């Protein structure tokens, strides 16, 4: 019995990481209706930039975030202004194919630069430390990951609904033409949204790299986890995305408890069940 409770708790905490994978995806879709196929590869890219930073400067991966976050944000802004803005429009094909091409380019560039060997970020004692909660040994790292996910979503929620930047995001999302008449430069607003999304991606990438080993090919899988969390939670609802991540994480750990080979399969099945029963997700955004 205690093992099942343990699996449940691990799943909930794992959901925090998936919510972090998903948050950037959700933000970008919300502001500019762009589904970024390269999102998973950008998470992996962040992990590799973190790897290089820790190796060159000899700092802890969390300290490396001070560099990785602005670097990823800058990459996001440049990518949006230089490439992705040109692909946006009424047709869904160009953004899809451009980000797909980007995904292949990032993957193979990482392969050239870092080889296919699995890498890992060394988080030190935090990786193994745990605290006892009612008879369960809960790892500090998963706990911290979940707390960070909650904090990140709270911050994104605040930015989106309580700041001038968020007002701009929502206005551009509602009506691009009229937003421009208000003096908003659409290209710049989209650039800022992508910068913010990839800033979050930096956090996700570092936490991923400390938790497990990674190689250039795992981006697609991370994209799918993030995507599933978004759809399970309901489009356009950031707290729903956290819930979606938790459901996905719990499905995976419970599946793995039954048979280690079923971990990923159980997560996908949970997603397909939600899609069949509640096509709009469990917590679709209510228009106020």
């Amino acid at each position, binding site marked *: 019995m205690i093992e099942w409770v343990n699996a449940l708790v691990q799943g909930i905490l794992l959901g925090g990481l998936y919510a972090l994978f998903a948050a950037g995806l959700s933000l970008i879709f919300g502001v500019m209706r762009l589904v970024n196929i390269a999102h998973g590869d950008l998470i992996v890219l962040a992990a590799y930039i973190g790897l290089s930073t820790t190796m060159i400067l000899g700092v802890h991966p969390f300290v490396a975030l001070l560099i990785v976050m602005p670097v990823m944000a800058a990459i996001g802004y440049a990518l949006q202004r230089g490439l992705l803005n040109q692909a946006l429009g009424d047709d869904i094909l160009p953004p899809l194919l451009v980000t797909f091409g980007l995904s292949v*380019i990032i993957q193979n560039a990482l392969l050239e630069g870092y080889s296919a060997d699995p890498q890992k970020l060394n988080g030190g004692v935090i990786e193994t430390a745990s605290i006892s909660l009612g008879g369960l040994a809960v790892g500090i790292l998963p706990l911290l990951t979940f707390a960070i996910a909650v904090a990140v979503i709270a911050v994104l929620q605040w930015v989106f609904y309580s700041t001038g930047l968020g007002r701009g995001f929502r206005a551009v999302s509602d009506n691009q033409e009229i937003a421009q008449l208000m003096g908003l430069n659409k290209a710049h607003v989209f650039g800022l949204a992508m910068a913010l999304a990839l800033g979050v991606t930096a956090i996700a990438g570092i936490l991923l790299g400390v938790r497990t080993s990674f190689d250039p090919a795992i981006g697609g899988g991370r994209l799918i986890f993030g995507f599933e969390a978004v759809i399970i939670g309901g489009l356009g609802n950031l707290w729903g995305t956290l819930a979606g991540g938790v459901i996905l994480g719990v499905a995976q750990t419970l599946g793995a408890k039954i048979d280690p080979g079923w971990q990923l399969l159980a997560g996908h099945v949970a997603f397909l069940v939600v899609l069949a029963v509640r096509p709009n997700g469990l917590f679709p955004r209510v228009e106020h």
Partner: protein
Amino acid sequence: MSAPAVTRATRASRIATVVAALGLVVLMLAPWWAGRADMRLMGEIYLYLSLACLWNLMAGYAGLVSVGQQAYVGFGGYMLFALTVFGGLHPIAAIVAAGGLAAVVSVPVATLIFRLKGAYFAIGTWVVAEVFRLSFAQVSALGGGSGSSLPVGIVRSLSSSRSGREALSYWLALGAAVLVIGTVYLFLRSRRGLALTAIRDSEAAASGLGIDIWRTKLEVYVVTSALTAVIGGLIFLQKLRISPDAAFSVNDWTAFVIFIVVIGGIGTLEGPIIGTLVFFAIRETLADFGTSYLMILGAVAIVVMLKAPKGIWGLIRDRFDLELFPLSYRVHQNGGEGGTLR
């Protein structure tokens, strides 16, 4: 003054038909004039061409942009292995049956993922492919996660000699390509093709004309899934070895296929043919550069998508008003060239 005449064929398309027929005869005779490596490469080209035509039918005509067609490539491959090893079927019969089974499987899959729109549909198809991959990895009789080889006895059942097998495998690939191109062409010329064109132009207007959009898209999805599984069976009949990672590879069976179609010209029948030739030209030229050829390919696809979204064939067509597959209706007034209705 004579009444305007409406035709579909053009001079270029009639010439193309003759050239294609002659070309086909030459290609059919390849086992007598081509080397072993060349035949292998040509077989691979035919199979990629088929995958490209099928993906183009879905994305370019039906608006179903899938990044999960590897689901059916892998399914077809695994069915070839399962039905020959456990079902005792002849490989060719197994491949045909794989197509039928894929059609059956694709219906419930479609009812589920058609709930997702646009780009989310795309990723949904990818999830389905992952489910297929993980499921087949669970089947230990088929080698589980590490895969298995086709038993020698089954390989021998195709032909006792190696050159006989290679010729047969080549002809099957060529035949599959002809079958796929022919099916897609006839599909587009039929009433369903017209319905697809109407849907592509405006879903609202098409539905006003009484076209059942969901059903039309479902038909396209089922047909492409079945044929993709057939191609998948042929691919792994060439490879003789299957594993979940190879069978359900998003890069091999979807990324390359998408690049081929985009570079050649999406939404045209000629585009995939040109794209396939360009893809193999790039691959054969840059193969020595290792992974960087994939980066170049990705970059070329991005540039084409942004600068010439109709691809190479789109550029040629706009310049010369050419059409090798006569799909458009042309109105001729007094023998003049007239306009083209697409």
